[in-house]
């Protein structure tokens, strides 16, 4: 599976996550900073709920008419002299991109940040084809230097690292000899990367949104690296997930505003670039050749299903930044490049339940994600839909659980069984009860009592008290 970042089992990854103090401190402080900035940016815009509704409408409409807009996008890119390739699988995408690289005899490739190229493992395909690939987003650059450490956050890929760790990586891999002060680290990376931009043969970018009406692509960054990736190399390839599209510039305006505010709490990021095809004769910079690779890789299987709204995601990571589960286990525990609530929804859809069966359950369904999503994806409801699918369609729930749920149904829909069961609860649990609580519960209660006390059932249930009271006994 292409998104997979670990062969360890889910609970092994979680164990590593909760015991990684560096990572956890970094995540907690980042979450708190970003939550605060997001709320302030939403407040500043005003009528936030109306904007969210508009965002939802735009995404719903676009996805419902995706075939139309993709066709329009493709026609317009071609009209402007660009090439378009529809890749139904990651293999097809990688094959096309490496073919272009070979034709151009590209030795050095510079990339700006792109989750979809992570998803299809483009870097290793290019490296196999003999190219040197340089990530130019600062976070991605750090991870690439650090022996290809996978991203742990869809917007801030190196979120799990602190500045001391970054200093050490620069020192070890690039002979850096200065301090861990962020400005010094960034300046060093900038100097290193500038040379790479100037000598690159091929530039590869992701795509925040493609604009169907003009055949343009847009890139939203804070570092300006995407500007150099698209200005200097002679050939540019832009890779986009097939759902990353808006009908017109008007919708782009709205979604970019929602994206910047939800993602990093900014009105706009430092650079928002719109690019349309290869450069014109009188342009001073830009690629001579432009390719747009539109990647399906499992997305069309989601269309028309109860999970379609997962494709509305604009990759802002607001859900990740409010998630208490992500807060404690970090991005790598999800085992996928897509972490957090949207990752728990999307990863099993793209990668299957076999590898990711725990993810839909790695949520307390607190709905903080659903509340934060700027395009109103009902994330916690989608997690429940996954669970339903695993139980009812895939029939993959554990036998003991099935039995327990059958028993639960019987009891909860039949008052006589329910009443008999709850009446006996107190005496059944009596052997395990000490001073009104249960510290070592039997069987299915054990996981609970491993970390917390369980209350002893009351000898007199509420309904017993009520009955007595009605009869005038109290």
């Amino acid at each position, binding site marked *: 599976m292409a998104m997979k970042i670990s062969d360890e089992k889910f609970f092994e990854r979680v164990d590593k996550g909760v015991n990684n103090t560096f990572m956890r401190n970094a995540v907690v402080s980042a979450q708190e900073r970003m939550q605060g900035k997001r709320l302030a940016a939403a407040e500043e815009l005003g009528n936030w709920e109306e904007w969210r509704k508009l965002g939802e409408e735009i995404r719903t409409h676009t996805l419902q008419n995706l075939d139309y807009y993709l066709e329009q996008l493709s026609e317009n890119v071609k009209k402007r002299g660009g090439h378009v390739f529809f890749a139904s699988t990651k293999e097809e995408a990688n094959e096309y991109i490496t073919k272009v690289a070979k034709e151009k005899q590209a030795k050095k490739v510079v990339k700006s940040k792109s989750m979809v190229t992570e998803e299809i493992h483009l870097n290793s395909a290019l490296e196999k084809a003999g190219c040197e690939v340089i990530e130019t987003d600062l976070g991605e650059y750090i991870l690439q230097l650090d022996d290809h450490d996978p991203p742990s956050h869809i917007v801030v890929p190196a979120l799990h690292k602190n500045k001391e760790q970054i200093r050490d990586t620069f020192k070890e891999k690039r002979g850096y000899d200065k301090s861990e002060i962020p400005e010094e680290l960034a300046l060093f990376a900038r100097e290193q990367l500038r040379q790479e931009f100037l000598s690159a043969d091929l530039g590869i970018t992701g795509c925040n949104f493609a604009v169907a009406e003009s055949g343009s692509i847009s890139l939203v960054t804070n570092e300006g690296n995407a500007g150099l990736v698209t200005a200097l190399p002679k050939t540019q390839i832009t890779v986009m997930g097939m759902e990353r599209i808006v009908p017109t510039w008007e919708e782009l305006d709205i979604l970019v505003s929602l994206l910047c505010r939800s993602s990093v709490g900014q009105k706009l990021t430092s650079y928002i670039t719109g690019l349309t095809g290869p450069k014109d004769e009188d342009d001073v910079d830009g690629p001579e050749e432009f390719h747009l690779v539109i990647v399906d890789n499992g997305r069309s299987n989601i269309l028309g299903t109860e999970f379609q709204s997962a494709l509305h995601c604009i990759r802002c990571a607001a859900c990740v930044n409010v998630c208490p*589960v992500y807060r404690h286990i970090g991005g790598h525990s999800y085992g996928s490049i897509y972490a957090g609530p949207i990752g728990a929804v999307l990863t099993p859809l793209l990668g299957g339940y076999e590898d990711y069966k725990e993810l839909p359950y*790695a949520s307390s369904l607190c709905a*903080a994600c659903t509340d934060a999503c700027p395009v109103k994806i009902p994330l916690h409801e989608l997690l429940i839909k996954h669970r339903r699918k695993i139980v009812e369609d895939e029939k993959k729930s554990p036998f003991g659980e099935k039995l327990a*749920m059958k028993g639960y*149904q019987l009891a909860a829909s039949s008052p006589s069984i329910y009443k008999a069961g709850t009446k006996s609860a107190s005496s059944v649990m009596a052997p395990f009860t000490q001073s009104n609580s249960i510290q070592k519960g039997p069987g299915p209660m054990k996981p*609970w009592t491993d970390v917390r*006390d369980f209350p002893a059932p009351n000898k007199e249930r*509420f*309904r017993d008290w009520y009955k007595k009271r009605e009869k005038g006994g109290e």
Partner: protein
Amino acid sequence: MNGGNLEMKVSLFITCLADVFYSNVGKHTVELLEKLGCVVDFPEQQTCCGQPAFNSGYHKETKEVAKHMIRTFENSDYVVGPSGSCVAMLREYGHLFENEPEWKEKAEKLAKKSFELTQFIVEVLKIENVNASIPACATYHKSCHMTRLLGVKNAPGKLLDNVEGLDVKPLPNSHDCCGFGGTFSVKMVPISEQMVDEKVKHIEETGAEVLIGADCGCLMNIGGRINRKGKPIKVMHIAEVLNSEVK
């Protein structure tokens, strides 16, 4: 007390947790509603809201439970429960019956008349001061389902603000889940443990001697961890606080 309104007939939806483990919460709820001028009845055929099955993906099973609960409360004017999460589940039933219009209609009727206790007091009875008094320094845990699914954000705070002698300290990171999440708490123990520990840490930071909550699930989780760690913090359901009187 409710401005001379006609008598409100309220059916208590006790919730299974309060019925079996926290019967006091039920008693306080009945007494409080009666104090506020309601006539309370208890349809004794009621069981559980179905949430354990629903959230685990067992929707066929949930439907049977939902039908039973819909029947049980069919003749009630209002259904009021001391738990936002369970009431949110009652309001969710309609989604289970997308292809059964008859049941869907009944489910929607139940949804419209179902309220969480503090929501009912503030939004329906229009009362913000229940004349309670309790000398205590407390903090309040706002439950996720109550605030986000049911949308009850201010009612508990308004009522608590008017309790005489009660000092409610703001809880840091109050928006974070306590880590209960029903079956999540037993399926994902290592994660749930971290979440409840952080919650307990924040509660301690307030210096409060009492933790107040409006949902027995959250209180069972946080209280269970507080007990296990031997922390000197008392856990109270909001019904008990609102029904307190110091003479």
